């Protein structure tokens, strides 16, 4: 079972589940909003498998989500960025060898790559699960899905199944676009089912290896099935990034 720890960020404290006590550390980035729920079990299963391989996995909650205090509507891009920077610093403080590797799911994939871009050589690699790059389309579909789910009942246009987005965060996420240059670290992009034409195009631009899995869109489900292949591939890719980091430092 993970140890529950806290670290400071943006005048508050964030909750982190720390799995294992290994020298090498991976940091997990949850998706925003309701998709978080569908990833929780997958993250726990992946963290448990990494622990069995002798590593440490850090799974943290952004301000106002999960077990971290705060009101989600007050979350803005500056707080989110500080949350991520502090999570990187906290994870590096646990790492005794090599760099840090990242795992990001959906919008967490965008956030993980943003962290990789800002923290440069400290990041040895990243695995992304069906990352979201077009923030505007993601938000549009998120709210449409919420409306469809609720059969068009009285609807707050900022409310996605209980996640009330602040105006600033909405604008910030809306500005996310497909990346246009190669990423600073090796990236493995794992798809659920067949990769879209857009995914193939973007993966080529950023230099990510695109790996198709038989996983279903677990981020849409509240009680998703086990996705053994996805988790096994993720752990293998993270392992290879640690290996690359060791070669580089050795």
């Amino acid at each position, binding site marked *: 079972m993970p140890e529950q720890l806290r670290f400071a960020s943006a005048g508050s404290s964030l909750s982190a589940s720390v799995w294992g006590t290994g020298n090498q550390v991976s940091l997990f980035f949850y998706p925003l909003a309701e998709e978080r729920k569908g990833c929780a079990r997958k993250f726990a299963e992946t963290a448990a498998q990494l622990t069995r391989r002798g590593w440490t996995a850090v799974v943290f909650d952004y301000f106002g989500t999960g077990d971290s205090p705060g009101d989600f509507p007050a979350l803005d891009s500056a707080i989110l960025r500080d949350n991520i920077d502090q999570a990187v610093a906290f994870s590096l403080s646990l790492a005794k060898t090599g760099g840090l590797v990242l795992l990001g799911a959906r919008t967490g994939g965008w956030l993980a790559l943003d962290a990789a871009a800002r923290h440069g050589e400290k990041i040895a690699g990243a695995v992304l699960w069906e990352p979201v790059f077009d923030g505007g389309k993601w938000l549009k*579909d998120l709210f449409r899905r919420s409306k469809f789910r609720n059969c068009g009942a009285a609807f707050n246009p900022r409310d996605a199944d209980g996640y009330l987005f602040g105006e600033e965060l909405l604008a910030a996420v809306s500005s996310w676009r497909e990346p246009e240059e190669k990423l600073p670290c090796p990236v493995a992009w794992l798809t659920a089912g067949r990769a879209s034409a857009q995914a193939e195009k973007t993966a080529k631009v950023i230099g990510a290896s695109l790996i198709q899995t038989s996983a279903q869109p677990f981020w849409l489900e509240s009680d998703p099935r086990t996705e053994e292949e996805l988790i096994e591939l993720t752990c293998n890719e993270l392992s290879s990034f640690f290996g690359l980091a060791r070669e580089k430092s050795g």
Partner: protein
Amino acid sequence: MPEDSEELAGRIREIIVERLFLEIEPDDIGEDDSLTDAYGVDSVRLFDMIVGLEEDFGVSFEDEELKLKNFDTVGAIAARVAAKLE
């Protein structure tokens, strides 16, 4: 772009199977089979299928069109998509 209604319905069946991860052949889905009743598809997954339709056919459904009855059968979906492609 599908040339006739049979071809359109065939492509819609393929998208349904692909986006909903159904373990059946596309042709097994009857024109009036309810996706929610016959295959236990919930509204969240059904919406994901709608997004798949939009991407595949290059169309966009208005919020007012996003009702379960418009997307619960191949026949209803085909009518909705055909109207967009006209």
